[in-house]
C-alpha cells in the first residue's frame, strides 16, 4: 500500500507534559484525510513533528512512501496554523519568493502564483502589500503559497478557521482539484461538517491520544444505528420507552435503547395497521461520535 504519511508510535513531550502520546495512523496516497480533535488535543504538534519542525521523543514518521521529512519537503505543501506573511511585502513578491524556495524558477513561481491568485479572486491585489489585505485574504494568499509548487502532499492546519463561507467553499473546490491531480490532502479541524463533506477517512485525537482512526462510514456502521427514521401516514399512539421526535412530511425519528428496538417499533406500526413508506436505521453522526469519544477520553483521564 502506498502511504502519503505513516506515523507509528509517535510521542512528543514538552518538558514534563506529553503532548502527543503514542499515536499511530496512516494516510493513503490520493485521499483527503481529516485530522480531528478538540482545541489543544495535539493536532498541531503532531503535524509539526510529522513535518520535521519538531523532533519526536519516540516513534517513526515517513512521508510519501517512506521518505524522511527533510527529503519529502520539496514535495509537500504546508499551511501552518499560525498565519502570517511579511506585512511590508507585495503579494506577488511573496509568492515568487516561496515558489522559488520550493524549486520553481523565478518566472514559473511568479506565473503560477498569479494563476492561483486568479483562481482565488485576488489577482487584482497582486501588487498590494500584505498589510493592505484583510485577514481572510492573507489566509488565501498563504493557502495559494502552499499549493504553488503542485505538491504531492498538502498538509493544512485548521485551513478554514476565520474564513467566510464563500472562501471556505472556494478552498474546498481548489482542494478537490488538487486531489483530482493526484495529491493527498491532510487537514486538521474541529469543524465536523467539513470532515463529513470532504473526507472518507479520519483520525480523531483527544488529550494527546488517538481515539479513532479509519473509514468514516465504517466507523459509523460499527457503532450501530442509534435511531430509526419512520415515514408513515400516522404513528402509533402508544410505544413503550419511545423517545421520538416528529419531523417534516410525516417523518418520525425514534431513539433506540435497550427498551426500544427496531423490531418493537415495526411491530407497533404493524399491530395498528399503519402503512409505512419508509423505515430506515440512522447511523450516528460524526458529531455524536466526536462528543461521545472525547467525553469518554476525558472521563478516563
Amino acid at each position: 500500500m502506498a502511504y502519503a504519511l505513516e506515523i507509528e508510535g509517535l510521542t512528543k513531550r514538552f518538558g514534563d507534559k506529553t503532548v502527543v502520546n503514542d499515536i499511530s495512523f496512516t494516510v493513503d496516497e490520493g485521499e483527503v484525510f481529516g485530522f480531528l480533535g478538540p482545541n489543544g488535543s495535539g493536532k498541531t504538534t503532531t503535524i509539526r513533528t510529522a513535518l520535521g519542525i519538531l523532533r519526536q521523543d519516540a516513534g517513526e514518521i515517513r512521508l510519501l512512501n517512506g521518505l524522511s521529512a527533510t527529503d519529502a519537503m520539496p514535495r509537500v505543501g504546508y499551511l501552518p496554523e499560525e498565519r502570517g506573511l511579511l506585512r511590508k511585502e507585495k503579494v506577488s513578491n511573496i509568492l515568487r519568493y516561496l515558489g522559488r524556495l520550493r524549486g520553481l524558477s523565478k518566472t514559473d513561481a511568479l506565473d503560477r502564483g498569479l494563476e492561483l491568485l486568479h483562481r482565488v479572486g485576488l489577482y487584482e491585489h497582486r501588487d498590494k502589500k500584505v498589510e493592505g489585505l484583510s485577514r481572510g485574504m492573507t489566509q488565501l494568499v498563504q493557502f495559494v503559497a502552499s499549493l504553488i509548487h503542485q505538491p504531492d502532499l498538502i498538509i493544512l492546519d485548521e485551513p478554514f478557521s476565520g474564513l467566510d463561507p464563500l472562501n471556505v467553499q472556494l478552498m474546498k473546490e481548489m482542494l478537490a482539484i488538487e486531489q483530482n491531480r493526484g495529491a493527498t490532502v491532510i487537514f486538521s479541524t474541529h469543524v465536523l461538517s467539513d470532515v463529513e463533506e470532504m473526507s472518507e477517512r479520519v483520525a480523531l485525537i483527544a488529550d494527546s491520544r488517538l481515539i479513532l482512526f479509519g473509514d468514516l462510514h465504517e466507523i459509523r456502521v460499527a457503532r450501530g444505528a442509534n435511531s430509526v427514521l419512520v415515514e408513515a401516514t400516522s404513528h402509533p399512539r402508544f410505544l413503550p420507552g419511545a423517545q421520538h421526535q416528529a419531523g417534516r412530511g410525516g417523518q418520525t425519528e425514534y431513539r433506540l435503547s435497550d427498551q426500544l428496538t427496531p423490531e418493537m417499533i415495526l411491530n407497533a406500526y404493524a399491530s395498528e395497521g399503519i402503512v409505512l413508506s419508509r423505515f430506515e436505521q440512522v447511523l450516528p453522526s460524526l458529531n455524536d461520535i466526536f462528543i461521545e469519544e472525547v467525553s469518554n477520553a476525558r472521563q478516563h483521564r
Partner: protein
Amino acid sequence: MLGNTADARIIFEEEFNRQIRRTGWRVFTVGVPLLMLIVAFVVPVITDTFSDGGGSGVGETVGFIDHSGVTDSLESFPGLIRLSGLDIGTQALVDGEIKALFVIPADYVAAGRVDWYRQGSGLASEDNTGDAFLNVLRIAVIDDFLSDELVARVISPASYTLFKVDDLGRPDSSGSLQDEIARAAPAFVFAMLLLFSIFVGSGSLLQSVTEEKENRMVEMLITSTSPMSIMLGKILGLGAAGLLQILIWLVAASISVPQISDQFSGLSSLSLEVDLIVLLIAFYFAGYFVFAALMASIGAASTSVREASQISAIVMVPAIIPIYTSALIIPNPDGVLARVLTFIPLTSPTASMMRIAGGTEALYEIILGLLVTALSGVFLLWLSARVFRAGILLYGQRMSLRSVWGALRQAG
C-alpha cells in the same frame, strides 16, 4: 554545513532586493553622500559668506594699541591695524572694522599681560585670533635681536623626519609625522566603516529575522529550506546591501574628500601598503560576518524587534572597546592589551585594525586573529540556524537563556 546553497542564493537575492527597496535604506544611502557634498561644497561657501574676510597674518583684521613700544620695529603685519587710543579701538570694534582689539600695556615685557577686547558670544578659548596675536607678540619681542630665519625657527622650530631602526641598527626613514598619520588613517577609516556596518546592518538583520517570526512566516520558510540556508542568505543579502551603501558613499567621498581634506590637514594623502589594505578588507568582512551571525542568533531567539535591539546593543560594545582604548593600543600596538583583544572574536576586528594603525610588527598575530574571527563567524552562523529553528517554539514566550536552551533541545 552551509545548508542548501541554491536556497541560500535565493534568500540572498530576495533579502538584498527587499532591503534596497526599503524607503529607509534609500533615504540613508542618498542622504549621507548628500551631507558629504554639502559639507564639501556648501559649508565653505557659507563660511566665506558669513566670515569677516581677514588677512593672511592673523586670519582676521585685528586692531592693537601698544603702550610698551615692543611692536615699534614692526613695519606692517598683514591683517593688523595699529590704533592710537582705546576709544577709537572699541568704536572700530563696534563698527565691525576689526574683529578684535588687543591692548599691550606699558609694563608688558615685565608682566607679560595683554588686554583682549572682543564682541558677541562664543568662548575666547575657541577663538584662534588670540593664538594668532601671540605669534605677532613673539615676533615683536625677538625681531630686534634675531635674523628673519631665526625668527621663523622660533615660531616654527622644526618638522620631524622619522627613522625606524631595526634590530641590526639599520635606520629606515618612515617619513614625517604627517606621513605616519596618513598611514594610520586607512585603518581608522576601516574601523569606522566596520562599526558603522555593524550598527546599521545589525538593525536590518534583527528586523529581518524577528519580522518573519512576528509575522508567523517562519514555519512556511522552515518547511521550504534549511535554517542554515535561511541565515546564510539573510546575512549575506543584507551584508551586500550594506556594502553597496558603503560603496556609494565611498564614491561620494572620493568626490568630496579632496574638498573636505583641504579643511582638515593630514587627510589629503592616505597611504598604506597593499598587504595591509588586503588585511583590513579581510577583517572588515570577517568582522561583519561574526557580528551579523551573532545578531542573527539574537534575533532568532527574541520574540520582538524591541527585545532583540536591547540585547544587541550590549553585544556591540566589544567592537567599540578597541577604538575607545586606541590611545593605549596605537602607541603600543604589540602590548598585552592589544594582543589579548586580538584573540577575542568580538574585539579582534577593531583591535587588529588599531594595531595596524599603530604599525604593529606582529603581523602573524593579526592573521591569527583574522582566523579566530572567521571561525567564530562560522560557529555563530551554525548557532543562529539552530536558534532560528528552535525559536518557533518560543512564540509569545518571554526569552530567557533557559527557555532558549530548552527550545534548542526540543528542536533538535
